[in-house]
Every structure is written in structure tokens, then in C-alpha cells.
């Protein structure tokens, strides 16, 4: 099993001095991912978004690994080009090292504008890890809704008003979309669970084809919580089953975390300003109960997938 003291011995490849907000889950995720990736040499690409802005303002850089940024919707296609170059050099015997490529993009750059490029790159089976640092909105442009934004969240383009109580649609299931591409590995996790995240990074990087990680990264600015509560919210997301920790590997689903006691969704919503308008009014209670229903249904569905396509029963046939 992965040990914290081992990870702690690794080099910090995402250095301090970047400009993320205090308590930014995204910065935390990237740092953990680059710690976990070692000792594999990695080359990275990122999309326009918070990460790019807080890590790459010239003449400063937080990256101790090669990094390329091109545009908002292009993390996957840029990585595809880098991977093609890598394949070319390997083929010609000009690179011997076993380099891994990681692409980072926010939920906007993944679920929305970058979905086509992601789909194309997965279908072509470029060998790279695509990480969605998912804070459930377009934070860099000022907290607009994305298709990863949950029902009822107050964002600047789904504002809670007199008639509409925040976003009126549920979020999109990106994991299933990615899994439908027959990826080598896909995992969902969040920053509180450092060991889960680190081991998923390692599995994903060693997978023989394209792999994907959907990492929930609480954002104090957009979620409107205290910076000190980022990790607590990250844990609550899993304990309420709002954010199941699971993975898809070799055609099998595996739930990696069963909360001892499944908490009601309110526990996750309450500390966050983006859901404040839902509390204390009847219409808001309806939205909360619809969210609860959605979470329960998804959680149940995941269990059924695990039962049907899980690891345990098929073990003997291996």
C-alpha cells in the first residue's frame, strides 16, 4: 500500500508560490498528482482556466515538469500532438525514456468545450492520462455554470432568483461518457482521499492506453466556503455519496469507498454559499430532495454496475 512517508520523499513538482486562492482544491490536486506520478518522467499539458492562470503567469512558473498550454478546449488535442511526437521519437530510436503524458483541464474544458477533443483523443487511443480538475463551474471567468454544475447551485449564469433556484438541470455523467470510449482506466476521486488519489494516478499512468481521472476539487471562491473547509467538503462529498469514489478497470467497476454512515446531502450542501438559497424555503427543500433522489439513484446504480460488472465474481475466471 502507498505510504505517506514515501510520497513525502518525492520531489515537489508543483512548487509553492503559485497564485491560487487559499484553500484551492485544484492546486492541491495537481500537487498530489505530480507527487504520485514519480518516479515516472511526465510531460504535461493544460487547458485555459484557473490552473493555467494561477500557475503560469510569466515570468513565473509553478511547474517543475515540462508543461504546455495552448487554449481552453485543447488539453486533450495538445496532449495528443505531444504523444504523437513522443511516439515518433520512440519509433526513430531518438527517445529511450518511458515518458508519461498528463493533460489537465477543468470541468468546463472537459465536460463542455473540450469534450470533442477529449472524445477524439480517447478514441484514437493516445496513451495519456487526462485529469479533470472538477470544481463544478467555470471558476476562472467568474463562476459560470458548466454541465458539471449540480442541480440547484447558484452560479453567475444560473443565478438563484425569484423564479429559478439556481441551475435547473442535473450534472452530466462524464465518467460514463469516458468509459463508453473503452478506456484503459477511469477513476473518480477527490482530494481528501490522498491515498485513493495517488493510487489512481499510478494505475492510470501505467494503464496501457488512454486513462481518465475525474477529481472533485472544492473551490472556496465558487462554492463559497471557508478556505479551511476544502478538505472537509471533499470528504463530505464522498460521505454523502454525492461524489462516489470508484474506478473502472479492465471492464470492471469498483467502488473504492463505502462511507460507514451515508450522510444526507444537506451535510454537503450546508457549508456552501452556492446552495444557501435552498435552505429555509419550501421550494428549496424540493430541490434538495430532488438532489437527494438523484444522489441515491446514482449511488444505487453504481452498486448495481459493480454487482454486474464487478471484480469479485469474475476473479476465478482470470
Amino acid at each position, binding site marked *: 500500500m502507498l505510504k505517506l512517508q514515501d510520497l513525502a520523499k518525492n520531489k515537489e513538482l508543483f512548487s509553492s508560490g503559485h497564485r491560487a486562492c487559499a484553500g484551492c482544491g485544484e492546486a492541491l490536486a495537481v500537487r498530489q498528482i505530480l507527487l504520485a506520478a514519480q518516479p515516472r*518522467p511526465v510531460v504535461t499539458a493544460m487547458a485555459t482556466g484557473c490552473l493555467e492562470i494561477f500557475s503560469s503567469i510569466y515570468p513565473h512558473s509553478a511547474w517543475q*515538469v515540462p508543461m504546455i498550454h495552448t487554449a481552453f478546449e485543447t488539453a486533450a488535442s495538445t496532449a495528443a500532438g505531444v504523444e504523437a511526437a513522443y511516439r515518433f521519437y520512440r519509433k526513430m530510436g531518438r527517445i529511450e525514456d518511458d515518458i508519461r503524458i498528463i493533460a489537465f483541464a477543468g470541468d468546463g474544458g472537459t465536460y463542455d468545450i473540450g469534450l470533442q*477533443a477529449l472524445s477524439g483523443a480517447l478514441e484514437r487511443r493516445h496513451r495519456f492520462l487526462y485529469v479533470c480538475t472538477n470544481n463544478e463551474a467555470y471558476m476562472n471567468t467568474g463562476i459560470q455554470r458548466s454541465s458539471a454544475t449540480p442541480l440547484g447551485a447558484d452560479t453567475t449564469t444560473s443565478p438563484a432568483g425569484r423564479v429559478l433556484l439556481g441551475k435547473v438541470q442535473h450534472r452530466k455523467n462524464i465518467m460514463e461518457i469516458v468509459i463508453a470510449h473503452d478506456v484503459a482506466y477511469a477513476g473518480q476521486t477527490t482530494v481528501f482521499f490522498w491515498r485513493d488519489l495517488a493510487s489512481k494516478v499510478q494505475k492510470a499512468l501505467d494503464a496501457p492506453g488512454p486513462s481518465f481521472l475525474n477529481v472533485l476539487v472544492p473551490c472556496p471562491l465558487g462554492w463559497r466556503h471557508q478556505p479551511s473547509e476544502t478538505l472537509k467538503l471533499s470528504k463530505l462529498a464522498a460521505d454523502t455519496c454525492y461524489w462516489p469514489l470508484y474506478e473502472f478497470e479492465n471492464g470492471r467497476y469498483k467502488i473504492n469507498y463505502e462511507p460507514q454512515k451515508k450522510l444526507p446531502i444537506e451535510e454537503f450542501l450546508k457549508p456552501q454559499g452556492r446552495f444557501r438559497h435552498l435552505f429555509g424555503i419550501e421550494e428549496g427543500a424540493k430541490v434538495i430532495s430532488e438532489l437527494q433522489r438523484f444522489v441515491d439513484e446514482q449511488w444505487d446504480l453504481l452498486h448495481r454496475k459493480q454487482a454486474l460488472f464487478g471484480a469479485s465474481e469474475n476473479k476465478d475466471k482470470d
Partner: protein
Amino acid sequence: MIVAKTGNEALAYAMKQINPDVVAAYPITPSTEIVQIFSNYVSDGEVDTEFVAVESEHSAMTACIGAAACGCRVMTATASQGLALMHEMLFIAAGLRLPIVMAVASRSLSSPLNIHGDHSDSVASRDSGWMQFFCETVQEGYDTLIQAVKIAERAYLPALVAIDGFILSHCQERIEIFDDRDVREFLGKPKPNYNLLDWRNPILVGPATLQDYYFEFKRSEIEGMNRALPIIEEVQEEFKKRFGRGYPVLEEYRCDDAEAVVLVMGSACGTCRVAVDHLRAKGKRVGMVKLRVFRPLVHPLLKKSLAKFKAVGVLDRVDAVNSYGGPLFTEVSSVLYDLPERPKLFSYVYGLGGREFAPEDATFVFEQVLSGKKDELVTYIGVR
């Protein structure tokens, strides 16, 4: 060796000889065949290229950028909507100073949909920081694509080589092709500025820059373009020395004692040559100025050449929809502005959406320019 090839075949063949490290592309008429034919070379192992058949032109250009940032020699081909879809990434390729070379079979832009040749696509990309070459013949397209690789790599700027859609892309011409070995020797190995895959020496490509640095980056990119012309000329000289053929950046055809000339780009140069010969036979003092390089805008050459004439008709195979004539016309007007004595300038827009441009149309233009009289600001040739 002399062979018969369409423009697309010739460009695909040039690509084979160039043997780029990475090609990422997406099909669109009339450039589809270039990549199609090239992918046969890939399948047959005739090139070392890593070929990426992407899901859109946006990703094609992006993947080219990713690979070029790793120091690879990178090429693609497109046209029309494809080039328009790449638009965002064209600026990024240029801003990162990546010598990507792109073949374009020029075509009109929607709407309405039209697959035929005009210069809407390339000209709409003129401010993206790419060098742009417009070719008169299939032979010139073949030669220019090879030259462009060297020019781009020396200037650290991307280059677009345009042949007119269908008129050149699909018409067969008798062309001379070189030996693979000679082409490869002429080009040598790329000498990239940087290599992202050199993970022991990490670099950050494409950072965010704010008010304090962006302008300086752009200024140095602009300087790169300012210095492109001598590099283009230098490579053309080397090409001529090696292969015995060359094209000036700006060519004057029978201009010596001409009173009226037309300025033109692309395949219509051929049509204008015919018209010039025909009118010269009748004793009319006309000539043609062929502009081969549209970016960088070769203003010293244009100024020097056009200042000599009484009247110049500027032919644009695209309209800028600015209510004031074609893009080349407005650029040439400004180039000539500070001359003490300026030639009369006439704007002609012709050939949109593949509309025929015959020697008679060119003759009409010459006669009007010679007469020095014209009612409209812009004349649209052959519109019903």
C-alpha cells in the same frame, strides 16, 4: 523527372518527400486528397511520419502545435471551413513561433455553402501571424511547399501554402518532380528552438502573460515577421541553385513600358498572362504584377513596382465585405499612400465561389484600367 499530377497529388508527393515527423489532419474539400494520398504513403511505410487522423481541424492544428512544441517537423492540410475552424489555433502556432507548414486548397466560406475556389479562407487568416504563399501553378505549389518548410524553420514562423481550390487542386499539370534524396538533403534536419519532451530540462510553453509582458512577446513575433522577407528570398535562391527553378516574391510580367497593369495572386496570374500577351499583340501597353507572398506583406517591393505605372487594377478573389473593395486593394492603397505621385487604383473582385475568370474577363479589366475611367468603386467581375 516529368510527371502528370493534380495539385493535390503534387502537394501530397511533396509531403512524402519532405517526410514530416508528424501530420495531423482532417478532411475537407478540395484539400481532402492531399492527406488521403499521404496516408497511403504512411500505410505503405514510405514515410516515417506519425500520422494522426484527428476528429476536427481545431484538433488538427492543436495536435500540430503539440508535436511542433516537441521539436518535430509538422505538416497539415485544409481549406475553407476547416481553416476557419483552426482560426483560434493559428494565432497560437504563430505566437509560439512554431514552424508548422500547412497546405491549403483555397475555397470559399459559408454561407451559402460552396466548395469551389476563392481566397476567402486564406485571406481571412491573414492577421494570424502565418506566412502566406499563393501559387500560380501546380508546379509552383509543389516547389513552394518544399521551400516553405525551410523558410518556416529558419524564420521560426508557420507557413501556409495555398493553391486555388479545384482550379489547381484538381487539374492535372505536367510537372517536374525532384529526387526524394535531393529534397531531403535540401531541407536537412529541423533545428527546433525548444523541445517539450526534454523532461530533464523542463520548460513552460504558452504561459499566461499580462500587461507587463504580452506586448513584448507580440513585438518579438512581429519582428519575426518583419525579418521573414530576406529569409524567403534566401531560401528561394538556395532552391534555385539546387533545383534550377525559382520564383520571385513579386514578378513583373511584360511590365517594362506598361501603362496599365493588374496586380493578382494565385491561378488567375495564368489567365492574366494570356490576356497580356493577347493585348500586347494588339499593341496595348499592359502588364501583370504577380504577388506570390501575401504575408509578410512585401510593401517595399510592391511600392517599388507599382509606383512606375499610371494605373493599377487590383484583383481580389475575395471580398472583405467592408463596403470598400477587396483586402489586397485596401492594403495596396495604403502601401502607395505616401508616394509623391500615385498610380490610379481600381478594385476588382472576381471568381467568388469558383466563378469562371476567363481571359476575356481579364481583357475587360485591362481595357478599363487603360482607359483610366471607372464608374463604380469596386467592380464585381462576371456577376449577373
